[in-house]
């Protein structure tokens, strides 16, 4: 989203990527549009990239963020999505597959694969963040409940 950082200098985009085949490609793309993107602390830059933080650090990163963006174009369940809303973070995501079924709290839905809608939702964040009209009812997905349901099914 190179256009966003030029129109809104308050924005800071943070990535914590799990290492995979595409990670290097994604980082290269980020570097192409944001040559000053930093790894970890990068005062003054608009993009920071972290590499597979451990669970406790990642939890602090999420808790310290203002919004989580997870615009999947397909999803089996939505672990990141459910984690983010459980952490009481506003979530910008797509209205596809399981996501509308599993998220709760402050959520803004956009169309899948729409760069324009991501940009617009971030620029117009004051309209939906902390807005009760964008609040979905409480849902809970604990591992204990899942295990109990599976045991019940097979016995």
């Amino acid at each position, binding site marked *: 989203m190179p256009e966003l950082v030029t129109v809104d200098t308050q924005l*800071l985009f943070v990535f914590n990527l799990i290492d995979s085949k595409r990670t290097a490609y994604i980082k290269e793309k980020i570097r192409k549009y944001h040559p000053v993107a930093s790894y970890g602390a990068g005062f003054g830059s608009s993009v920071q990239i972290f590499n597979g933080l451990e669970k406790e650090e990642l939890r602090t990163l999420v808790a310290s963020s*203002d919004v989580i963006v997870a615009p999947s174009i397909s999803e089996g369940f939505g672990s990141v999505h459910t*984690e983010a809303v459980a952490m009481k973070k506003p979530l910008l995501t797509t209205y596809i597959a399981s996501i509308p079924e599993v998220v709760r709290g402050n959520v803004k839905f956009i169309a899948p694969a729409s760069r324009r809608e991501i940009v617009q939702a971030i620029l117009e964040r004051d309209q939906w963040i902390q807005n009760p009209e964008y609040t979905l009812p409480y849902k809970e997905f604990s*591992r204990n409940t899942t*295990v109990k349901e599976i045991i019940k099914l097979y016995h």
Partner: protein
Amino acid sequence: MNAIRMVYGIADKKIRMIHNGVDTTFRNPDEVTSFDIKNWKNQYGWNNRFVVTYYGHAGKSK
């Protein structure tokens, strides 16, 4: 679940939905103190910024 209904035509009465469980320790906001957040923001220069975060896999579907 809709895919099973629509693509395979399985009747609802034959479907039992059990969602994935998630890590309740990780996702508990009470595990992070305001002190932790203040430290993090100082350490990484997040003060006075609006922080937009993506985390997870970098696959095409994400």
